[in-house]
């Protein structure tokens, strides 16, 4: 399953997407190499979340191409389940299964979807909970945990599928300020371990520190992109400058 380093793991070309008459993506292209961390930033309604939801087929696109490890996502014949085994996703609202404990949330998909042995999956799930710093929350239900803890379980749940790339959709936007850092730290460790990450985020400091590449979207287009240093210090487009001046 491992993807080579020379071709982009995710390759997006001229993607168009509209909801009815509302055009959300108007020709977006970007590449993500294996092990890369890219951040997509931009004002609300600029199509950031829609874009990453297209990568695992939660949204379909009208035109263009999205290749994940060489496989076309915009193919009606595509086996979406196979795609989603490779592409993990973490949501703004965590979306943990409230009727299952933290441990069950993490180990359920490997057992039911990947058909892993129950004991092995359980052991792996316990290790993952340790990795996100929640070894004492195995038996806790989502309703009994803070937002930050729930989000870390959600990250562990996604990791349990052993994906090649993980999509993070504004994962700290719904959190209390004091719990944002514990989640960002978890993601940062993942990135350092070499996980390919595509993040939609409003955390500029985090993007600057962790990202290999930053894309700025506005009005359904990528207005500007570059490495964090260049992007934050030498933004050229007036829209980027205006956005950064409001945020920083």
């Amino acid at each position, binding site marked *: 399953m491992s993807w080579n380093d020379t071709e982009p793991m995710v390759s997006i070309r001229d993607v168009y997407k509209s909801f009815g008459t509302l055009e959300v993506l108007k020709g977006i292209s970007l590449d993500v190499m294996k092990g890369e961390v890219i951040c997509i930033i931009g004002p609300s309604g600029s199509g950031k979340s829609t874009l990453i939801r297209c990568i695992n087929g939660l949204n379909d696109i009208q035109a263009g191409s999205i290749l994940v490890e060489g496989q076309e996502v915009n193919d009606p014949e595509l086996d979406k389940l196979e795609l989603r085994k490779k592409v993990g996703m973490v949501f703004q609202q965590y*979306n*943990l299964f409230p*009727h299952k404990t933290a441990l069950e949330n993490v180990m359920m998909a490997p057992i039911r979807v990947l058909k892993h042995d129950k004991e092995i999956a359980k052991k792996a799930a316990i290790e993952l909970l340790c990795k996100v710093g929640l070894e004492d929350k195995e038996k806790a239900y989502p*309703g009994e945990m803070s937002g930050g803890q729930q989000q870390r379980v959600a990250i562990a749940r996604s990791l349990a*599928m052993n994906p090649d790339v993980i999509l993070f959709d504004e994962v700290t936007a719904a959190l209390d300020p004091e719990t944002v850092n514990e989640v960002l730290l978890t993601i940062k460790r993942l990135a350092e371990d070499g996980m390919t990450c595509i993040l939609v985020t409003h955390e500029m400091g985090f993007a600057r520190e962790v990202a290999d590449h930053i894309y700025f979207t506005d009005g359904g287009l990528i207005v500007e992109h570059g490495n964090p240093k260049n992007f934050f210090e030498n933004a050229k487009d007036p829209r980027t400058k205006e956005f950064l001046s409001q945020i920083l």
Partner: protein
Amino acid sequence: MKCHPYKTDLPVMLPYKPIETENFGSTIKLWYAVPIVALILGTSAIAQSGSDIRLGAVQTLMRWMPLLLQGFIFNVLISVMAMAIGTGLGAALGIGQLSLNRLVRSSSWLLTQFFRNAPWLVLLFFAMFLLPFEVNIFGIIVPLPDWVKATIGLALPVMANVSEIIRGAVLSLPSGQWEAAESLAYSRRQTLWLIILPQCLKRMLPPWMNLYAILTMATVLASIVGVSEVMTLTGEALAAEGGRPDLLAPFYAFVLLIFFVYCYPIARLTVRLERKFSVIN
């Protein structure tokens, strides 16, 4: 009630609650006392107008009570069976309404809407007069007595309502649950059975219990088509007593009372569950 515990010369109606709670003890709630009081007051008031040779209304009622209670047990039996059949069929129909297959989805929808918007009594008549009195299943003749037909007739609207309860509960879950399951590569069937429906059970319980209480009260419709349930037996008992008008009120009050005693706790429990779940969700 010649003397009352309150001394007042104001022309106001005195509350009788303290008196009644003394009589019935603190364990019986006021709500239960109301129909019992109505029954006894009605009985004694009318009994006084009866002649001395005949038994008083209360004694007459006492004599018939075992039979009437048997009839009520029959009502309960019909309601439980109609609920079981209706829930089974309704569950299939409700899940059918969520199918991705257009034909399955639209036919489930049509069936649900048809039986949900039909008067129960008409469905009951339909079942009574369209179903044969016996069916031949692989050479075995199975008789279909009236009460079985009535049960089937009542199960039809239950089925449609259960179908809607399931569809409503599934739609009431946040879409994030579907998306999370999808992005973890669960198949649609796994998503429905492992993630969505288990969460819906809690949401479905209060409306399902509510439906059961309504069904139980609707079982008396079976008297119209001649099933020997409590209403039919009450009518027959009254006829056997020679149609004494003084018996009407106590007999039917008794029937009301047993339905109340059976259905009210279900209603209370439903309200409590609704409150509990609304706090959690």
